[in-house]
């Protein structure tokens, strides 16, 4: 059965007091842990409690090639109907890189920009046709990740009904003129942070679009056992914890450089340096040093155990639109040490009073020294971070922001339809 025929016959029946929502996202699956995709899945699960919701996505699981992995058509993920459409052509990294170099750094024309977008993908024309065909079936389409083909095309196809969750970072893509129309014509925008909103407003001038800074909640941490973590992994004493992919793109090379310099500096000054514990798969060489411990990939339980046992979570990334691991640290009342060059996480840390930030190795060393020498400060920062998490990122707060926005849109739409209906 084709995905199109499946789609037309299996849509859930509409309930009067419920909205019909479609979430559009480039990848979707229980095993996909990418930031925006996990974000979409968590929001889908929450919205599905109150509304009739389907997910519209591709068959891809790999964000580099978009190669088809999942079977096309209707499936079910955590009780939510998921319509998958095949990616017509996988991404050619060389061609994409060449086009990206042009549109990011050289002069280019509209045709090249569109070719770049198609090359970026996931190029899924069937999905677009399905969305166009079902435009009137749904009240709103909630589209995740502004930069991908799926969102860019879907937002244009459902103009007036497209609610955008941009998950934008300050990279050159945000400056491309082809996105301005999407930011300006969105029915509403659900931002991850104040910094993201400022960034998009600066580049698109979309102040008139209804918006809210909402972000995403996290799975409530399970009960933790710090002794279990220390015994299992043989990690004693204070330690800084890094969680995530160990990658140049995540700022890890700088983290290693700064940490090793801080280690020497603290030792010279007879301060016991905390260890650096890394949890995540490695995409780059890790310095061989007795104070650097690589755990590899860890279970969710062990992640939380490690977080609770840590002196602080360290977040060296330059580009983040929202750091869920930061929220997880604050959920467990742990302080954070973040890279000041990332506006979003520095802004969150400053607003929360839940941690410290560094711009260079000297400041990194001083932050580490401060937290190592003053455990009371760590407790105090962790408590502030926890209060910020409670006030902004628990699920009832997130749910409420989505509901408020959807209600507002409905009211606006009703008011807009009213005069037309009365005159007809």
């Amino acid at each position, binding site marked *: 059965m084709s995905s199109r025929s499946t789609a037309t016959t299996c849509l859930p029946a509409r309930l009067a007091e419920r909205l019909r929502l479609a979430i559009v996202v480039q990848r979707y699956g229980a095993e996909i842990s990418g930031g925006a995709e996990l974000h979409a899945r968590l929001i889908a699960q929450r919205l599905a409690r109150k509304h009739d919701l389907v997910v519209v996505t591709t068959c891809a699981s790999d964000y580099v090639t978009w190669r088809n992995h999942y079977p096309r058509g209707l499936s079910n993920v955590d009780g939510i109907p998921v319509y998958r459409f095949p990616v017509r052509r996988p991404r050619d990294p060389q061609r994409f890189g060449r086009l990206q170099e042009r549109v990011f750094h050289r002069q280019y024309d509209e045709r090249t920009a569109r070719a770049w977008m198609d090359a970026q993908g996931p190029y899924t024309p069937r999905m677009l046709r399905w969305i166009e065909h079902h435009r009137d079936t749904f009240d709103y389409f909630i589209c995740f990740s502004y930069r991908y083909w799926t969102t860019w095309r879907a937002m244009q196809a459902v103009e007036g009904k497209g609610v955008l969750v941009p998950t934008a970072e300050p990279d050159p893509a945000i400056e491309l003129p082809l996105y301005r129309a999407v930011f300006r014509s969105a029915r509403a925008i659900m931002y991850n942070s104040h910094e993201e909103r400022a960034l998009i407003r600066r580049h698109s001038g979309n102040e008139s679009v209804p918006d809210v800074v909402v972000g995403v909640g996290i799975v409530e941490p399970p009960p933790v056992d710090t002794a279990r973590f220390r015994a299992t992994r043989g990690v004693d004493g204070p330690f800084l914890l890094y969680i995530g992919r160990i990658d140049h793109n995540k700022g890890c090379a700088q983290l290693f450089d700064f940490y090793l310099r801080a280690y020497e500096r603290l030792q010279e000054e007879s301060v016991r340096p905390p260890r650096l514990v890394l949890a995540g798969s490695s995409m780059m060489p890790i310095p061989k040093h007795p104070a650097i411990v690589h755990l590899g990939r860890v279970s969710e339980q062990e992640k939380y155990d490690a977080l609770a046992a840590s002196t602080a979570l360290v977040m060296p990334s330059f580009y983040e639109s929202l750091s869920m691991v930061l929220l997880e640290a604050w959920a467990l009342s742990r302080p954070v040490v973040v890279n000041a060059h990332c506006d979003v996480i520095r802004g969150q840390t400053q607003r929360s009073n839940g941690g410290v930030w560094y711009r*260079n190795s000297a400041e990194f060393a001083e932050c580490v020294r401060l937290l190592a*020498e003053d455990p009371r400060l760590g407790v105090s920062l962790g408590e502030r971070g926890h209060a910020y998490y409670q006030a902004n990122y628990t699920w009832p707060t997130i749910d409420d922001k989505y509901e408020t926005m959807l209600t507002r849109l409905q009211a606006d739409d009703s008011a807009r339809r009213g005069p037309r209906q009365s005159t007809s």
Partner: protein
Amino acid sequence: MSDNHDYEIDYEHIDVARLMEQVRARAATRTGNEPTFPTVDSPDLLQRLRQNLDLADEQPYELQRTLRLAGDWNIAPADLRASHDGPIGTLISTVRRLARPLVKVLVNLDAPLHKQFKINLGMAHAIYELTLENAALHCRVQELSERIDELAEHGNDVSTGTSC
């Protein structure tokens, strides 16, 4: 107030912005003013390197753009009969085209032209690659220079006893 002698911290009403002012001041006092130099992880530097190292198979055409050359930059057999003298040029070019079979019996210019075309293409590739390599090395030298300056500054501080 504070358990830490170097800092003034109100643990009950902590203000991280104020704390960070103290952190920066202490960092500067302990080590001297360390410049915020770009490391190899700096996004700008990474971007430049990535831009330079993403080699395209259309490099000669990038060279054409770089040198602001209009039209085809390499030579072609059509260049032998081209003329830009307006209507007369069109006539001249037509005569040359008609005479071409006769000329070709006497001398074959296509072979050396093709050879020169290949040489030009190879040179364009080489120039482009060298330009990229030069840019990458420039990035690396800049990074190392800044690192040396930083280490020299640190060495001066240590020798004059200002680092602790």
